[in-house]
């Protein structure tokens, strides 16, 4: 457990970075990042709704800074979620390679 990542970015740029963490920390990451992501996305939509009065205002009338804040919150939620996917518990495979099903559709 001395190397920090499964694949350091040296050999393949395209592969997503992965960080192996202890199981408990993995649970912490999953639970809290999901909570934050949900709160941000839902909150973002509420803010966006408020800024545009549920999309009923004309373009010129809407509260632009608030609308931008709403969109930014939605993006932030997505970002937190996406960022959290790089953390893995020990022994956890990548979804694609780790699958134990044969590809013959049953």
């Amino acid at each position, binding site marked *: 457990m*001395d190397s*920090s990542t499964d694949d350091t970015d040296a050999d393949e740029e395209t592969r997503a970075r992965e*960080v192996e*963490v*202890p199981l*408990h*920390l993995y*649970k*912490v*990451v999953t*639970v*809290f*990042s999901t*909570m934050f992501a949900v709160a941000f996305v839902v909150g973002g939509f509420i803010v966006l709704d408020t800024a545009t009065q549920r999309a009923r205002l004309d373009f010129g009338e809407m509260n632009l800074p608030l609308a931008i804040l709403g969109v930014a919150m939605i993006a932030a939620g997505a970002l937190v979620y996406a*960022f*959290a996917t*790089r953390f893995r518990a020990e022994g956890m495979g990548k979804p694609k390679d780790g*699958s*134990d*099903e044969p590809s013959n559709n*049953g």
Partner: protein
Amino acid sequence: MSLERKDEYDHGEWMREKNLTPVETTFLTVLIWMDKRFRIVDYLEILETLYYRVNMQMPKSHTEQYNLDNKFWYWYPLYALGSFSTIAYVVAALSGALLGFYYAPATTGDPTTAYNQLAFIMTELNFGFMLRSIHRWSAQVMVAAVFLHMLRVYFTGAYKEPRELNWIIGIILISLTMVFGYTGYLLPWDQLAFWAGQIGVEMSLSIPLAGEWVAQLLFGGFSLGQATLQRMYIIHVFLLPFVVTTLIAVHIGIVWIQGIAEPH
């Protein structure tokens, strides 16, 4: 010595060993900070343990025995759709019973009594707007849930032997759900209701041989009037509730007796 359970490792020390980017370190530090204060993960772990304790006492299912869960798990949330249909039905029944205190199926007057009572519910009755909205929404949700439930049953093959009877009861249920929707749609006796009723009469009349008889029976005549509204009302609040409630009970009773279908 404190009673608090010690973490299995020292977060700070461990993080220094790994070469994490600053963003990663901050991210993890924040989440660990949250975790120390709100021990949600611990509570979830308790639930997880309880879940497995209960499950261990159950016989192994076909999916577990042949290790199909890894292909099939994404269907499981859709097994909730039958329950969603039931919940939507119960919500519609309760809100409908309350609406029944204020509605009257009469075409007298202009605007008609029926329409006036709706206007009263919407504008004057306390929580009336909410009550009617709950009734309409639950009705819409029920139709959608029942349809999706049918798709779930079809695509998991749950209609196959020995569950043919429940599929047929299901067909009756989805049809009656739509009759529920149609009869309810006519009750406000506004323009939408009236012309939807007109379409209904003409569709009935178009049935070969039995057409006139069906139109008489369901709509109380060949043109719309008091008899039509009254029949829609009785179908909606008296006939269908008994029939559909019974059928849902039988439908779920059969699932209970036969057990839920394994994927085919």
